[in-house]
Structure formats: C-alpha cells, structure tokens
C-alpha cells in the first residue's frame, strides 16, 4: 500500500536522465540548441566533461545507483574527436557496458551513446525528447529505493512467514 504522499510522488514521477556531454561537440551542440531556442524535455541534467573518453563506466553505474532512470553519453562523431580518438575509447567501453547492463537487467533504452556534433542542436532536442519518452515508458528504475528494500528484506520476509512475529534485532 502506498501512502498518500508516496502516491502523489508516483503521479508526479518524471524521468531523471544524467547526460555526460563532451565539451567540444555535444556540449556545444546543447549550447546551440539553447541559442536556437529548441525547446525540449527538462528531464536531462548535463555534466560536462572534456571528452567522451573521460567518461568512466563507473560514472554511469553510479548515476543509476543514485537514482537516475537513464544515462546519456554524448560525444563527437567517429573521426571527429577533438582529442583524436577519445570517442572510440568511449565507444569500446560502452559497447561492453551496454552488454553488461543488459545482463544486469537494466533495459537497453536506459543507456544511450550518441554522437552529436557541435552543429547538431536539433539532434540534442530529438535525442533528449526521444530518450525521455522511452524512459518514461519504462517507468522509474529507482535503484536507491530498491537498495533500501534489499537491506530491509529480512524484516519483510519474516513478517510474511511468521505473521506478527517481529524480526530479531531488526
């Protein structure tokens, strides 16, 4: 059963997307989207890094574990990296990470790698809107809440098995 407060939170749930954008292409494209007033969903929060190659897979997992419903990584198109090959490194890592996320039960659409060049403001809009909608369809990932549930699992199970008997030291 949900309390009224929780219910209202459920009703107002909005997807949270953490976006790691490289300084030279994708972050600039986001600036361009701004300058061009290309309205899009307010669900993505951008973290600027110098290169998509700086994005440690830990950042993505950390974002999920802290409550992100989706993570977006944006870099320069292959061949266009400001640092020559950083985006290829990102691509290699993210191909493997994507597979691993799938094995860990994180739906495919929750993590996205996109090449967006400095001129593609329109693409920022499309990608963020599209991803917001995809994640919205998937619903909340809610890992922090799940962690909490897992840590109190004993309590829950004991209650169901032993009726009113309280768990020891819970």
């Amino acid at each position, binding site marked *: 059963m949900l309390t009224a407060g929780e219910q209202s939170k459920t009703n107002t749930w909005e997807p949270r997307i953490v976006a790691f954008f490289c300084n030279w292409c994708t972050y600039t494209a986001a600036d361009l989207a701004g300058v061009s007033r290309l309205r899009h969903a307010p669900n993505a929060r951008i973290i600027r890094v110098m290169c998509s190659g700086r994005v*440690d*897979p*830990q950042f*993505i*997992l*950390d974002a*999920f*574990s802290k409550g992100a419903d989706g993570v977006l990584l944006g870099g320069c198109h*292959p061949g266009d990296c400001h640092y020559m090959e950083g985006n*290829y*490194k990102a*691509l*290699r*890592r993210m*191909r*493997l*990470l994507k*597979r*691993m996320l799938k*094995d*860990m*039960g*994180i739906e495919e659409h929750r993590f996205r790698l996109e090449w967006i060049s400095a001129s593609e403001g329109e693409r920022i809009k499309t990608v963020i809107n599209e991803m917001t909608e995809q994640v919205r369809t998937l619903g909340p*990932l809610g*890992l922090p809440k*799940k*962690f909490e549930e*897992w*840590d109190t*699992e*004993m309590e829950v*199970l*004991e209650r169901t*098995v032993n009726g009113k008997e309280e*768990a*020891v*030291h819970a």
Partner: protein
Amino acid sequence: MPEKPKVTFYWCASCGGCEESVVDLAENILDVVAAVDIVMWPVAMDFKKKDVEAMEDKSILVSMINGAIRTSEQEEMAKLMRRKSQLVIAYGSCAHLGGIPGLANQFQREEILQYIFEESPSTVNPQKTRPERKVMTNGNAVTLPNFFNVVRALDQVIDVDYYLPGCPPTPKLLKQALDALLSGNLPEKGTVLAPDIALCDECPKKDTKPSDLKFTEFKRPHLVQIDSATCLLAQGIVCMGPATRGGCEGVCISGNMPCTGCFGPTSRVKDQGAKILSALASQVEAKDEKGIDATLATIPDPVGTFYRYGLPISLLRRKNF
C-alpha cells in the same frame, strides 16, 4: 594474570576455505591460541549461540566473520557478534565483497530454489517437494532460517571495522592483521588490511607486459597453452590484476592462472568490474561497432568475469528484475 582477549570466528555464506586458511597459519596458530581466548568457532569448537548471548556487550575483542549474508540466521548471528564485539573484521572475499555466493544476485530466489530442488540434473523430485520453513517434530517446532532474495556483503548488514581480503586471505596477511590487533597498533577504521595498490605492482610477470597492447581477441585460460613467462594480458587472457588490490603476491598468476579479482578494488575505485571493463575495452583494437563487438564477444560472461567476487558491493549490487 590478565584475562586474554576474546576472539571469535564465525562462518556465514561461504565455502569454508576461510576457516581452513586460519589453520594455514601452521605453527603460528599456536602463538595465536596462546595469546587469545577463542570463545566461539563453530567449525572447530562447540559453543552455542546462547553462550555468546550471555556475554556482556563489547566483551569480545574481535570477531572474524567470513562469508556473505544469505540467510536470516546469518544476519542474526552477524548482528549478535557485532553487539558483543569491539571490532568486527570481514574475513575473506565473501564477507568483504559478497564473494562467489554473491553471483546468485543475478537470479531471483525462486529461480534458485526451483533449480536446486527441482531442475538440477542430479535431482529426482517428481513431487517437487520443498523444505518447509517450520516443521513440528516430536511436538517441537524446528525452524529453518529464511533464505533471502539478495546476497549481501557483511558491511551491508552490520558495521565493519576492518577487511581482510582474499579468497581466502593469505596466512601472511592474517598474521599481520593479528599482530596489529594484539599490539593495538590499529590502522584507520574501514581499512582493507592489504596494500592499496594494484596487483600488477607485485606481479612476477610484470616486466613482460608490452606498452602497446591491443586486443583483437580474449582467450579463455583453459583453451590455450599458457606461456608461464609472459604477462597473461599480453597473451589475451582476461586478468583482473590491474584492477585488483595486491597483497596476495600473485599466487594464482604464479600458478599460471589469471587473477580473478578476489582482493577487490583499490580504495580509489568504487566499482572494480566497471574499472577493469573500462581498461580492457579501451585497449580493443577495432574501431567500428562490429569489430569491437566481435572482439568483446570473446568475453562470454562479463558480469561473471568482472564481478566474480564483488557483485553485491558493486554499484548496481544485483540484477534488476
């Protein structure tokens, strides 16, 4: 004669190897026994739960708990030991990281029970009988502990003071830890009692790793003739050494087996699996998606490979259902 410090060893979800490792102290164990009073060690001595319950809180100097937390009994005992002890050491990979039992976090409780009691090849159970939680025998209720859906490392259940890593910890590290305890020369709380540098630092094959390594294929150790003189990564074998804390002195590697990561990450890393993934993938040679995927496909089970010991303490902790 002043009372000897009280010590306990307790065994949760683990294989028992950690218990044996205590015996691996060999003749040193005599010094230990002489210096401390072991008040609980179920694998070796017949103390009962009620004996510990009867003790005063914080009356035990240190409890060494190995194994992950998988059942309600383990949780209950861990909490009991915590209450009675001044210090708790997570002993071995399972307590430290979740360990091999933690791999069960890729499945649901029901999937596991179903497999064990109904589907595994060695099981004949046409009635699909499952153990009852509560059974009456001779008028007495016998209760089985509850089997959790989630496997947890020790510090996800109780407060842990120190970690002794390894599957199992080496006698050398255990000796050092005990010496520190008995001398009262204790490091900062939360310390992992092993060097905070990756295994490569002490790897015997360190010098043979090239500086321009590019992977086109990963090989599984049982399918290749391993050259015992050369770095295993250089031979295309996934070795977790670069992302794993040192201290074992490369025992597996000396035995021609790659490091599988039992010492966990260094203090600077939050997620060992993500880090080794990042390091290995960065060195893949291919540049196009297809080529990259082809190379990476030669790692058939990334979760099982990169989180062999650390799934419960990884950032995602378990498979999301």
